C-alpha cells in the first residue's frame, strides 16, 4: 500500500495545505502590481465571507440574505476599535469576529425557528435594516459618511519601501488561510457530519440524537464569525466602514458567489470570490467598449450577475467547482478506459 502524500490527521493535513497556499500567495503578492494586490486582497476577504456562508447554506441548508449586514457588524466593530480606541489591527480583527459571532447567536436563534422563504425574509430584513442604523445614530457610526481608519502600517522590519497594498493583501490572505484551516477542519469532523445530517433530514437527525436547533444555531454562529472577520479585513484593506458598502446588493452578491462557485465546498467559495472581484471588472470593460450611456453602465454589473447566475444554474448547476469536478471525473474515466495511453 502506498503511503498518502499528506498525513491523515485532519488538522496537520490542513495546516500543511495552508502553508502551501501561503507560499504560493507569498510569491504571487511579490509579482503583482499594487493594484492587483488590492484585487487579491478583495478576493481574500470575499473568500472569508463566502466560506462562512457556504458552510451555512451548502452544508447546513439554511439560507441567509443578511450576510452583508453581518459583514457590516464586523467592519464597524473593527473601525470603531481602531479609530476611536486605538486598538492594533490583530485584536481588532479578533474582536470583529467575536462580536459578529455574538450577533450570529441572535440571528441563529431566530433562524432556527424559521424555514425556507421565512428565513430568507427575516435575514433579508437584516440586510435592509441594519445599514440604516448608521444614519439613525450618526454620532456613533458617522452617518452616510461612515468611519475612516488609518491605513495599516507594514512593520518596520519589512523595509521602509514595502508597498502598503502588498501588506493589505497579506492581512486579507492571512484571514483567508485561518478561515480555511478552521472551516476545513469543522467540515470534515463531527460538526460537519451533524450539519449535513440536519440539512439532509431534520427528523432523521433528531432520531439519531442530534439537537437540530442547536446545530443550526452553531452553523449561524460560525458563519457569522466568518462574515465578521471578512468585514474586519475589508476595513483593513479599504480603510472605510460606510453604509454604502453594505447594501442589500452585497448580501445578494455573496449568495451569488457561493452558488456560482459551487455550493458547500471551500473550493467553490474560492471560485466565487474570484468571480465576485473579476465579474464587475469585466462588465465594466464591456460597458466601456460598447460605450453605453452612464445609466446603463452603472446598472450593467447587476444585470451581468443575474445573467451569469442564470447561465450557471442552467449549464453548471453545481457551480464552477462542480464543473471542474465533472471535468476531472471525465478525464479520469477516459484514463481508466484507455489504460494503455499512459501508465497511470
Amino acid at each position: 500500500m502506498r503511503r498518502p502524500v499528506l498525513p491523515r490527521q485532519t488538522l496537520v493535513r490542513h495546516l500543511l495545505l495552508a502553508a502551501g497556499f501561503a507560499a504560493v500567495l507569498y510569491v504571487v503578492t511579490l509579482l503583482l502590481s499594487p493594484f492587483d494586490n488590492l484585487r487579491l486582497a478583495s478576493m481574500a476577504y470575499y473568500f472569508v465571507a463566502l466560506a462562512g456562508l457556504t458552510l451555512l447554506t451548502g452544508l447546513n441548508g439554511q439560507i441567509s440574505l443578511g450576510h452583508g449586514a453581518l459583514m457590516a457588524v464586523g467592519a464597524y466593530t473593527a473601525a470603531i476599535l481602531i479609530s476611536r480606541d486605538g486598538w492594533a489591527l490583530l485584536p481588532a480583527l479578533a474582536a470583529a469576529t467575536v462580536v459578529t459571532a455574538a450577533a450570529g447567536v441572535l440571528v441563529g436563534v431566530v433562524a432556527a425557528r424559521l424555514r425556507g422563504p421565512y428565513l430568507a425574509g427575516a435575514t433579508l430584513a437584516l440586510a435592509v435594516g441594519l445599514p440604516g442604523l448608521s444614519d439613525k445614530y450618526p454620532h456613533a457610526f458617522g452617518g452616510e459618511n461612515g468611519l475612516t481608519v488609518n491605513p495599516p502600517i507594514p512593520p518596520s522590519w519589512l523595509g521602509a519601501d514595502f508597498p502598503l497594498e502588498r501588506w493589505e493583501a497579506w492581512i486579507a490572505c492571512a484571514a483567508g488561510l485561518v478561515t480555511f484551516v478552521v472551516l476545513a477542519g469543522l467540515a470534515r469532523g463531527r460538526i460537519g457530519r451533524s450539519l449535513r445530517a440536519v440539512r439532509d433530514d431534520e427528523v432523521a437527525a433528531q432520531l439519531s440524537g442530534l439537537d437540530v436547533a442547536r446545530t443550526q444555531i452553531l452553523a449561524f454562529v460560525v458563519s457569522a464569525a466568518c462574515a465578521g472577520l471578512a468585514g474586519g479585513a475589508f476595513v483593513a484593506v479599504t480603510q472605510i466602514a460606510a453604509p454604502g458598502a453594505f447594501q442589500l446588493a452585497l448580501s445578494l452578491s455573496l449568495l451569488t458567489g457561493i452558488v456560482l462557485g459551487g455550493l458547500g465546498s471551500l473550493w467553490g467559495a474560492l471560485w466565487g470570490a474570484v468571480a465576485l472581484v473579476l465579474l464587475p471588472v469585466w462588465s465594466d470593460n464591456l460597458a466601456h467598449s460598447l460605450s453605453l450611456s452612464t445609466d446603463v453602465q452603472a446598472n450593467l454589473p447587476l444585470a451581468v450577475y443575474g445573467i451569469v447566475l442564470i447561465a450557471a444554474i442552467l449549464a453548471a448547476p453545481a457551480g464552477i467547482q462542480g464543473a471542474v469536478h465533472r471535468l476531472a471525473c471525465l478525464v479520469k474515466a477516459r484514463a481508466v478506459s484507455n489504460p494503455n495511453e499512459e501508465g497511470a
Partner: protein
Amino acid sequence: MTRTARTAALCVASVTMAAAVAGCGSSGGSSSSAPGVTKTSVTIGSHQPLTGPAAPGYSEIAPAAKAFFTYLNAQGGVNGRKINYVYKDDGYNPTNTVNVVRQLVLQRHVFAIFNGLGTPTHTKVVPFLTAEKVPDLFVASGCPCWDDGAGQPETFGWQPSYQIEGKLLGAYLKANFAGKKIGVFYQDDDFGQGGLTGLKEEVGSQVVSAQPYQPGGTNVAPQITAIQKSGAEVLVDFTIPAYTALGQLTSFKLGYKPQLVVSNVGIDPTTVGGLLKEFSKGKAGTALIEGAISDIYLPSTTDASNPWIALFKKIHDQYDAKAPFDGNVEYGMAAAYTFAQALKAAGKNPTRQSLVDAVEKGGFTGPGLVPFRFSGKQHGGYSGVQIAKLTNGAIVPVGVPQVTDPGTGPIKPYTTKQPAPGDNGVVKG
C-alpha cells in the same frame, strides 16, 4: 488517478493560476519622468457622481470639463501636450470612491486627481493621495478641510469654502434681515456643518433652529416642520440640489413660506427646477425657489455679454451640446480652465512636485469673480462670493463681490476688473 497524482495536479493548477494572475499585473508602469505624462499627453483622473443621489446636476460637471479639455487639445493642448481626462463614477458612495481613486492612481497611473467631487467621498481618499504624493487639485467641494497645506500638501480646494460662503451670506442677512429669526436646513457632514459655522459667525444670535439631514433619505418633513415650529422667518439651506427641491416641496405642502436662502451648490435653477418638476410629477417648478437669495463666484450663465460665458457657451455648443448650459457646465469648464493654467505654470516638463509648487505660487485669474487664496500654507479656493438673487428663473448678482477668510477676518469688497479670456480661450499663464 492516485492520491499523489491528484496532489501534483493540484499544485500545478495553483502555480499556473498564480503565474496567470501575476501575468496580468506586470503590465503597469511607464518609464517617463512623471506618472501619466508622455511627450504628447498628460493623463488625469477623477471620481464623479454620475449616478446616485448627487447625480442630478453634478453629473454634468465632468463631461463639461472634458469638453473644455477637448477644445483646448484641438488648439494644441498645454505646452504641446494633450490633456486626457479619465473620470469614473463613484455614485457619491465613499466606498466606491476609495476603489476608483486607487484604480486611477495604481492602475491607470494618472498624473493627478482633478476635481474629485463631494465632501463625504473625497475626504476618504485624501490620506491615500497624500501618502502617494499625487497632486489632488481643485476638489469639487467647498469643505474647509481641503485648506491644510501643512497636513495635506497635495490637496487644493477650488470653490469658496462653505465657511466663507456661510459667513458672507450671514453678513448679508445681518444687514438686510436684522432681528429676524433664522432656521437652517443642512447636510450633516463637513459641507453643511462648515456653512452653519460660517453663518453663525455673523448671525449666531438670530439662528433659532438648525436641522440636519443625511443624504440618502427622502423624507425631510421632520426637519422642515421643526424649523417651521421655531417661527423662523428666513430659511437657510446648505443642501445639494435634490434636498433643496425636497425641502421646498415639503415647505410648500406645510404652507410654510419663509425667505429662502440657499448656498451656491444647491441653487442652480435648471437643476433644482428640473428636480422640483420630477419630484412633484410636473406640478411644481422653479416658482418654488423664485426670489431665493444665494451667492456666486463665477459670472451668471445668463449674462451673454460676459466674454467667459460667451467662450464657455461656444465650447458647450460644439462639444457638450447634449447637456443644458447651466451652472454645472460653467463650473466644470471654469475648473478645467484653472487646471490648464496650473499645468502650464508647472513648466515644459511637469512633475507632480512642480504642479503642486505652481498652484502654491498661485496668481491665476480667469472666470472667477474673486481671487484664489492659494499659497504655501493656504490651500483653499476662491476667497469670497457675490450675493445674488434668483429673479425670473435666472441668477442676478447683487452689489459687488466680497472677499474674506474662513475665520474672523474682515469682509472687504473686491473691485478689480475681471480679465478677458485669451484668443480662442487659450490659457493665459
